[in-house]
């Protein structure tokens, strides 16, 4: 798994590629927790390059969402591959997360 971070208009964009599983999800969790601990409650998570996500990975995403929501924050997801989208749909995660086709659209919704 590879993780890249950028920031646009003070909104962190975390781009992930590869597999988010029991071995790799700890790295993603650490990065998301660092952002949240820096009072970044609006986060864009680009999953375009993610080919697989396990239940352990889903837990990391849900945990981040639950931490930012009380501060009126959100974790907006971008570009889910079909397999990952299917996992989100079956597990009901699509009812909790908003998914956007591009980083620009996700960022745009934070500005509204």
């Amino acid at each position, binding site marked *: 798994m590879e993780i890249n971070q950028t920031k646009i208009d003070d909104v962190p964009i975390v781009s992930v590629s590869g597999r988010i599983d*029991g071995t790799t*999800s700890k790295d993603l969790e650490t990065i998301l927790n660092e952002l949240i601990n820096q009072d970044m409650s609006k986060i864009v998570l680009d999953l375009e390059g993610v080919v697989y996500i*396990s*239940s*352990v990975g*889903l*837990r990391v995403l*849900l*945990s981040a969402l*639950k931490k930012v929501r009380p501060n009126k924050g959100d974790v907006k997801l971008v570009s889910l591959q079909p397999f990952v989208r299917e996992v989100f749909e*079956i*597990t*009901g*995660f699509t*009812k*909790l997360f908003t998914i956007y086709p591009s980083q620009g659209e996700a960022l745009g919704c934070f500005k509204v």
Partner: protein
Amino acid sequence: MGSVKPLTDMEYAECFNAFKSVSSEWMAIEEWLAKDFVPSIGGRKSAKVLSIGSGTGDFDLILMRMLLDEIPDLSYTALDPNESHNEIFLDRYKNSGLQLASFRIIAKPFCEDSFEGGFDLIHLTHCLYYIPDRKMAIKRAYDLLNPGGILLIFHQTPLGINEIQRAYLKRAKGHEKELFSSYDIIQILKELKLKFNFDILISDVDVTDCINENDIGKKILNFFMESNLEGLDGALRDEIICALKDVSRNEGGRYFLFHPSGIFWIKKDGSMQV
């Protein structure tokens, strides 16, 4: 496949207690009730509650206590076909010190002709696995609500125990009747055109004992597979334990299975439109 037997009532109770001791689910539900749910329904003087599949009352005793803090005149009806569970629940209620306006336990399964409605809150907590016609049960529960009443459903998501069940329940016990997740509930609610709120609570099960194959672990695994696995083929048992290890995360040498709880919250508003 080996010889796998159904759990007796006593075995089920032991296995459930073993599961409860290593699961954070009840704590997560209790926290959600206290922070999000109960405050939102406060302000009324009286309420009628129906618990479907109340079991030994683990969940209901928590809910009763919380509701009584907000609603002084509380009438509570519990419904469960298992009479030995009902006796335990009744004893626990009597010893709880809780003072409800009325409390009754009905030893019947939940079906269409069960009884009159007029409830302000109905909950189905981890019981839809055991009801053959789940769509009817949800529709019937909704119909039994007063206008403005709330139907609460706590149920497992397709993650955690359900992942293991999907892979092994049929192979281990020959059928998978109990296999039913929040995904299926969403489909039913859409078919019934009922508006609903949905959330997922984070909770984990410490499955280290299952992986170590000690006595507590065997009970927990029995609970996961809804059967007494004593006679299960050794190779299949190894496969299940290996899969359990694969889907769990390792923290400080212990294995935690992400087993979140799905919550549906359906308010009866007089309409049936999405």
